């Protein structure tokens, strides 16, 4: 069960539209390392997590990712507000515009539609948490690349907040992986899948 809170986690206030920035930032909505994938990864994995503390962490981080998806969408929404067709064409956004006008649709910067194939839910706690650690770093790198491409401080302020959250989530998943490993056979972490073999 979720309840909507009518506010962003962190403010997004962009005064000037910029279709070139929107074209790359949309990848953090529907791209391979984006916030939609992040939220669905953790919220799918939690059902096979046999340890309540880690299932709780997956729920809490998955929930925060939904708030990050909303922030990314707010950034793209504000960056594409009141654009002229001329500005859209010059920024190479015509391909997107013809299918979606300036509505939000989950795709990567390269135009690839969102796909669940960008993440796994493997039903094995060690495997899933190791994927989650990589996912947080991939998202952090993507935000670093966005910061290399975009210099409008209204945009970079919110992007820097999102980047920082990837680092905190990575830290928490590292601790969760250690907590899971401590509960496994100390001679061999990989002897069993505690979500399946310990029946």
């Amino acid at each position, binding site marked *: 069960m979720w309840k909507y809170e009518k506010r962003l986690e962190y403010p997004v*206030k962009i005064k000037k539209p910029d279709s070139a920035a929107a074209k790359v930032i949309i990848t953090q909505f529907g791209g391979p390392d984006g916030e939609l994938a992040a939220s669905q990864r953790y919220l799918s994995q939690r059902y096979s997590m046999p340890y309540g503390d880690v299932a709780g962490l997956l729920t809490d981080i998955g929930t925060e990712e939904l708030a990050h998806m909303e922030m990314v969408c707010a950034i793209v929404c504000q960056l594409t507000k009141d654009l002229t067709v001329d500005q859209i064409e010059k920024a190479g956004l015509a391909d997107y515009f013809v299918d979606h006008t300036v509505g939000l649709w989950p795709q990567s910067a390269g135009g690839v539609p969102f796909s669940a194939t960008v993440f796994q839910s493997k039903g094995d706690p060690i495997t899933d948490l190791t994927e989650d650690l990589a996912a947080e770093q991939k998202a952090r790198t993507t935000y670093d690349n966005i910061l290399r491409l975009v210099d409008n401080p209204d945009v970079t302020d919110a992007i820097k907040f999102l980047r920082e959250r990837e680092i905190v989530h990575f830290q928490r998943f590292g601790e969760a992986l250690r907590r899971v490993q401590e509960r496994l056979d100390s001679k061999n972490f990989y002897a069993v899948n505690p979500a399946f073999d310990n029946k």
Partner: protein
Amino acid sequence: MTERDKALMRVQTCGFAVTEAVLFLDTHPTDSAAREYYDKAVKDYNAAVMNYITSFGPLDMTQVQSSGGWSWTEGCMPWEEDCNVEI
């Protein structure tokens, strides 16, 4: 900064403190200093929400004062520029 901006900023600041404390406690459940931090953050957050919704409308669907009309869908949406605080 308008009064609404100040009130919203307070909700966002206190809400973030709660989020951070919760994630930390998920992996450090026996840390008593973190639990104290959480207790204070939740108290501040609840007070900030109370302060906001009294003057500027509901933040969730259980906070609508329906005798005054249906305010849940009124006002700006969170993703709109006008709805957000300048940092």
